[in-house]
């Protein structure tokens, strides 16, 4: 579903953020992406969703290049950044309706999904309020609903659990598993290693822009915990 081959990204000023990174996320995968701050997680994610350009390597979404077929790729993706700044001048429902319009979601489907996920994340009563009045957690929930509104084939999330209350976190994990059962793929970065260990069937650890470990969670962790392995790698 998401194939990253030899990705390298150097920022203006010469900082090499990602170096020869390769990953293959298949349908049904919940893929955890782990690394310390500044390791290159967000850069990789932003390149994968077509927000930033890259000079070396290729990224394919469902077989299509994000460079050449950005529109088509983005139609299959839902992305939520670590700190989702959402149009503050719209109400929650206006924002969701806007996203549904962009993805061409039909009237019946959008109503059904907003009703469903609004109740799951207990946000429906606040959907008539301006986003500017939302707390960080509420914005995160709104971003999650907007990500699910078009039933993406690939969900890319940067630190999705930050700011969510325990109940919403649990619901998100259930939704992630449900989506994967339906054939979608999820690629997300996290610092919460316990979550990654329990939730992901595959993990990758990135250090200084290069991939250090990748594979199925069981194979990677073996007899240690993910936290022990991570600390060992970080030295």
């Amino acid at each position, binding site marked *: 579903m998401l194939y990253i081959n030899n990705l390298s990204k150097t920022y*203006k*000023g010469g900082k090499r953020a990602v170096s020869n990174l390769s990953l293959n996320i298949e349908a049904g995968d919940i893929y955890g992406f782990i690394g310390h701050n500044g390791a290159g997680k967000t850069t990789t994610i932003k390149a994968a*969703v*077509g*927000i*930033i*350009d890259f000079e070396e390597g290729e990224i394919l979404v469902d077989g299509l290049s994000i460079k050449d077929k*950005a*529109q*088509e790729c*983005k*139609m299959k*993706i839902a*992305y939520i*950044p670590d700190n989702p*700044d*959402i*149009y*503050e*001048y*719209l109400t*929650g*429902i*206006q924002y969701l*309706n*806007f*996203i*549904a*319009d*962009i*993805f*061409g*979601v*039909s*009237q019946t489907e*959008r*109503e059904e999904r*907003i*009703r469903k996920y*609004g109740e799951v994340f207990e946000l*429906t*009563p*606040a*959907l*008539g*309020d*301006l986003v*500017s*009045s939302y707390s960080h957690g509420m914005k995160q929930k709104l971003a999650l609903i907007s990500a699910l509104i078009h039933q993406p084939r690939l969900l890319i999330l940067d630190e999705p659990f930050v700011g969510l209350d325990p109940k919403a976190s649990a619901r998100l994990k259930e939704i992630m598993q449900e989506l994967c059962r339906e054939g979608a793929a999820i690629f997300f970065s996290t610092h919460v290693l316990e979550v990654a260990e329990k939730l992901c069937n595959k993990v990758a650890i990135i250090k200084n822009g290069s991939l250090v470990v990748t594979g199925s969670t069981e194979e990677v962790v073996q007899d240690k915990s993910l936290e022990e392995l991570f600390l060992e790698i970080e030295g």
Partner: protein
Amino acid sequence: MLKQIYLLTKIQLLNTGGFNQIRYGKDKKKRNNLILMLSSYLFVGLIFAAYMGIISFGMVLLGMGDMVPAVTAALVSIVVLFFTMIKAGSVIFEMKTYDMLASLPVSPTAIVVSRFLNMYVMDVAFGFIIMLPAGIISGVMMGKGIGYYLLYLIGILLVPLLPLTIATAVGALITAVSSRMKHKNLVTIVMTIGVTLVIILLSLSLSGTATEITITEEILGDLLEMVESQIFGMYPPARLFMEAVSYGNLLSGLLFLLVSACPFLLLIALVQKEFLAISSILYTHKSGAKYEMQELYQLSPVKALYKKELARYFSSSIYVLNTLIIYLIMILLAAAVAVFGAEKVEELMEFSDIVTKAMPLLLAMFGCMSSTTNCTISMEGKEWWLSLSLPIRARQLFDGKMMVNLTVALPCYLISEILLLFSLKGSVLDMVWLILVPLAYILLFTVFGITINSKMPVFKWEKEETAVKQGGALLIAMLIAMVSTIIPMIAVFIIPAGSQHLLYGIITCLVLAVTCILYVRNSRVDLRTLDD
């Protein structure tokens, strides 16, 4: 407290001019853009300074050298009053950075004072550009002593205080009144536009009355009297300033100091006392009744983008005020022609035949100077990631943005056209150009706004004012709008009578051709390459 005020003011000023980016930024393109922007400001400043120098030179030659301090002070005051009114409310009562600072051991008074000082420093800088060259030229030509220069310099520091106080008081009052209304932004926009238009009309009416005297009695004594009545009518404290600087009257100087500084200090004291109360009303969001799912309607992506952009536009009073006022001036101009006739308006503008010969271009100038697209990309700010990650093409995004400008500009254009078509006399072809030329320019600068803003976007801002007023794109777009209409205007006056139709035809074709080229180029922009 003083140290806190100093530090806060310094930080705000560093943020304002982008000086820190130039000094410490590693991105060469970003630095070059900032340098280009500051150079443009410097260029405009030099033009103003030179212009004021020439006026001062002329006034001394006409024996009105003593009036130079009063004229420059009045000019600075009107400009400060006009521009501060638009931004005062949003600058003083801005809450995002206040929330951040409030958690630090910083006194609220220091925050409020530093915000006033931030505006004051910018106004003083403008004061120096306008007043200093004029003062030096008149001082040297009249052989004035050191006392003249010293008092004049002190005056430059004092002049912006009173207009700043009045503008802030009115701005704060509007903000405070509108904060109690349901549609806060709309009320702020309407009230500020109302007050600003009153200022424009008042200053126009003063200059209109005075011009009549020149026509009937063309003698120098009356000219002096005319300038005095105009200046002192517009800005009464100018008399005190003139008496202090030109005649060394220290009592007048002291009175000018009191008149300028006391209201300013009083206002700061008042605002800092009521700051939290006003801000909390202003930024407390009323939580509506519990939302219940209703029927939702599907729109096409472009329509959805347009609707979203329209909501963005009307959510920001400073954005609306900064763009809508010029369009309203365009209507005012057309209304003035319709009510008073072309000759009277030409008299008022002190430019003979400008309406009868070059009205299409004059209308075009007002129609293209303040396109909302000049800063529409910058206005996305931290939310830019959404435009990048959603499956929308550059063309769709830009179409939505351009449609907002046309929504604002076209009704103003249509009203102006109706007023002019019924009041101006001319051939059918004259009327055709009156319709086509401004329309072509509006379209061009709607598209050009996107072009220039995509070259110089500013995404990292805390206050909307930074995106709306301080972007280099805005300044360059305004300059190009002025130059591209003024040059053909000059040509209209130079070319032989009867050739205007050909000229207007060429201009229209050229403008529309450039519009098409830019539109196609904009549509091909890779949004990922846009970076501030």
